[in-house]
C-alpha cells in the first residue's frame, strides 16, 4: 500500500486508506474539505471499527463472563478475543497481562494507586521517590502528584533541553536508590519527541525502580513491543489508535499484577465475596471491576487488526516522511518557531509551534475557517509551555491518512493567518 511521491519515499496509499474513514469526506464552513490535523488529540475511526461495533450491538450484545446463553458466550468470546489481539499487538508474553481500562489516564492512575496500597517491596511511601519528566501529559503528572501528596513520597523529574529533548545529564542524581518508580512518556504529545527508553530503563533497573511507560502517543504510530522496551507497565488509549472512545489499556508484568493489590472493587474482579471479606480473581480480572467496556474493547480489537493489516512499520515510515516534509516547510514560514525537535529524527508526527506573537487561539480559529483542524493550547502538557516561556502552542499532528497536500494546506493557511493579523 505504498505510493511514491518525488522526494517523499515511504508514503502510504492514502487515497485508498482515506476511503475507510467516513469523516474525512466531511465538508465544513460552506463546502471546505476537512483537513484533519488533530490526530494527537484523537484519531478518526475506519469503517471496519464502526462495523465491528454495530455487529456487536446488533447481534451479540450481552454481559460477559457470567452467562451460559449463546449471546453471553459470544460476547465473552469477542471481548476476550480483543484481549488476545491487543496482547499480540504489543507482543505481551501473556494475554492475562492486558487490562482494559477506560483510557490511558485510568491506566496510569491504576498503577499509581496500586503502588500506594502495595506491600513491600513495591509500596510508595514517605521514604521513597517518584520520578517523571517535564514533558509528561497531565495524565502522567497529576496521578503522581496525588500519590506523592497522599503518601509523603517525593516527586522528582527530568528537565528539558532547549530543543525539546529530555535532559538526562543528571540521570544518576534524579533516579537514585530511593526511587521506587519512574514514569515517562515514550513520545511527547506536545513536541513529538521520541524518548531514549533504553537509557532510562537501564538506570531504573540499577536501582530496582519500576518503570511505567506512557505509550499513548506511541501505540498508534509505531511498533510497540513491551518486552523489547523492558518496562514493567505500559499504558495507552484506544481513541488515538483508530479505536472507540471509552477504552484504554494497561499492560503489566504478570508477577507484579499478581502481587499488587486491586484498585477498583466490584463485580467481575472478585473470586468470592462475603459480607466479611472477599478474595480476588487473578489478573487481568482483578483490575477490571464492573461491566467492562465490552463493545469498546471489541472495537479496539478491530482497530488493532486494521492497523496491523497496513503494518505499523509502514505507518511509521509514512509519518516519518510526512513529518520531515512538514518540518521543512514550516521552517520556511516567517516568524514560525517550532517547539520541540527541529528535525524528523527521533520524533513523532505531532509538531507544535508558535507564530510570531499571534496567539495560538487565533491561529487555530483562522485555520479552522479554512477547514483546517489543528489543536491549540497547552495540550495537557502545561509544564512544557512554562519551560519554554510561552502561553500555548498550535499543534498539527498527522496519522496514516494524512497527506503532503494537507501539509501544503496548513502552510498556506498559516500564511493567511499572518496576513490577517499582520
Amino acid at each position, binding site marked *: 500500500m505504498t505510493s511514491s511521491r518525488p522526494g517523499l519515499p515511504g508514503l502510504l496509499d492514502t487515497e485508498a486508506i482515506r476511503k475507510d474513514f467516513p469523516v474525512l469526506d466531511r465538508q465544513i464552513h460552506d463546502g471546505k474539505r476537512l483537513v484533519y490535523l488533530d490526530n494527537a488529540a484523537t484519531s478518526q475511526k475506519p469503517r471496519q471499527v464502526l462495523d465491528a461495533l454495530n455487529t456487536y450491538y446488533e447481534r451479540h450484545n450481552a454481559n460477559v463472563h457470567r452467562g451460559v446463553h449463546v449471546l453471553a458466550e459470544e460476547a465473552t468470546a469477542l471481548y476476550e478475543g480483543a484481549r488476545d489481539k491487543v496482547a499480540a499487538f504489543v507482543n505481551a508474553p501473556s494475554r492475562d497481562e492486558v487490562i482494559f481500562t477506560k483510557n490511558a489516564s485510568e491506566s496510569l492512575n491504576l498503577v499509581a494507586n496500586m503502588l500506594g496500597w502495595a506491600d513491600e517491596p513495591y509500596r510508595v511511601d514517605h521514604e521513597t521517590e517518584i520520578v517523571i519528566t517535564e514533558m509528561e501529559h497531565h495524565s502522567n503528572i497529576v496521578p503522581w502528584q496525588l500519590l506523592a501528596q497522599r503518601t509523603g513520597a517525593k516527586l522528582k523529574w527530568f528537565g528539558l533541553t532547549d530543543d525539546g529533548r529530555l535532559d538526562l545529564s543528571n540521570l544518576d542524581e534524579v533516579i537514585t536508590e530511593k526511587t521506587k518508580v519512574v514514569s515517562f512518556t515514550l513520545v511527547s504529545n506536545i513536541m513529538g519527541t521520541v524518548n531514549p527508553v533504553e537509557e532510562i530503563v537501564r538506570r531504573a533497573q540499577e536501582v530496582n525502580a519500576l518503570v511505567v511507560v506512557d505509550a499513548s502517543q506511541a501505540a498508534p504510530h509505531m511498533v510497540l513491543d513491551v518486552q523489547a522496551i523492558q518496562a514493567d507497565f505500559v499504558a495507552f488509549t484506544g481513541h488515538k489508535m483508530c479505536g472507540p472512545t471509552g477504552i484504554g489499556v494497561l499492560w503489566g508484568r504478570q508477577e507484579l499484577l499478581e502481587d499488587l493489590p486491586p484498585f477498583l472493587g466490584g463485580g467481575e474482579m472478585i473470586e468470592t465475596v462475603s459480607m466479611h471479606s472477599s478474595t480476588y480473581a487473578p489478573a487481568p480480572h482483578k483490575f477490571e471491576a464492573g461491566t467492562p467496556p465490552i463493545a469498546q474493547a471489541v472495537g479496539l480489537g478491530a482497530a488493532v487488526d486494521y492497523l496491523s493489516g497496513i503494518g505499523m512499520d509502514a505507518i511509521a515510515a509514512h509519518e516519518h516522511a510526512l513529518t520531515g516534509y512538514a518540518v521543512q516547510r514550516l521552517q520556511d514560514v516567517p516568524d514560525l518557531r517550532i517547539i520541540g525537535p527541529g528535525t524528523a529524527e527521533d520524533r513523532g508526527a505531532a509538531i507544535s509551534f508558535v507564530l510570531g506573537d499571534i496567539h495560538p487561539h*487565533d491561529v487555530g*480559529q483562522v485555520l479552522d475557517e479554512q477547514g483546517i483542524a489543528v489543536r491549540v*493550547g497547552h495540550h495537557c502538557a502545561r509544564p512544557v509551555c512554562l519551560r519554554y516561556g510561552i502561553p500555548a502552542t498550535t499543534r498539527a499532528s498527522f496519522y496514516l491518512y494524512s497527506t503532503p497536500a494537507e501539509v501544503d494546506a496548513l502552510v498556506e493557511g498559516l500564511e493567511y493567518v499572518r496576513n490577517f493579523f499582520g
Partner: protein
Amino acid sequence: MYQEVILDHYKNPHGRGLRDGDAEVHHVNPTCGDEITLRVRYDGDTVADVSYEGQGCSISQASASVLNELLVGKNLAEARRVQETFLELMQSKGQLTPDDAMEDVLEDAVAFAGVSKYPARVKCALLSWMAWKDATAQALGESPVKEKTA
C-alpha cells in the same frame, strides 16, 4: 468573529498595564492558558480605574480593552449592568441579535456578538469580565478567594 472593532482593540488596547488598585485578581482560562491579572480602583461607587496585564488571544485581549473603555468612569450600578448585558450576549450561543437598547449599553462590545457562536471562545471573551466582577466583589469586601492544590 473577527470584527474590525475587535482587531482594533487587539492591536491598540486601552488602559493596559497594572496600576494601583483596591483589589487584584488573577484569572486563568484552563482550556487554553489565557491569563489575566486585573486590578480595580473605586472612588466612592465610581469605577476609577481597571488596570490589567495578561496573555491571551485577540478575543480576550480586545475584550479587556473594551471593558476598560466601557466601565471606567461609570458608577457601580451602571458598570454592573454593562457586565450583565455582556454576559447575556456571550451566553446567547449566537441566538441573540443585539437590539438598539443593547447596543446603547454595550457600545463597542456588541462586536463580540459573533463570538457567542463559538463556545470555546466565549470563555476568552468573558475572562476579563469575570475577573472584574471578582475583583469588584473583593474590593467591596463581598467574597473571599478559595483555591485547591494538589
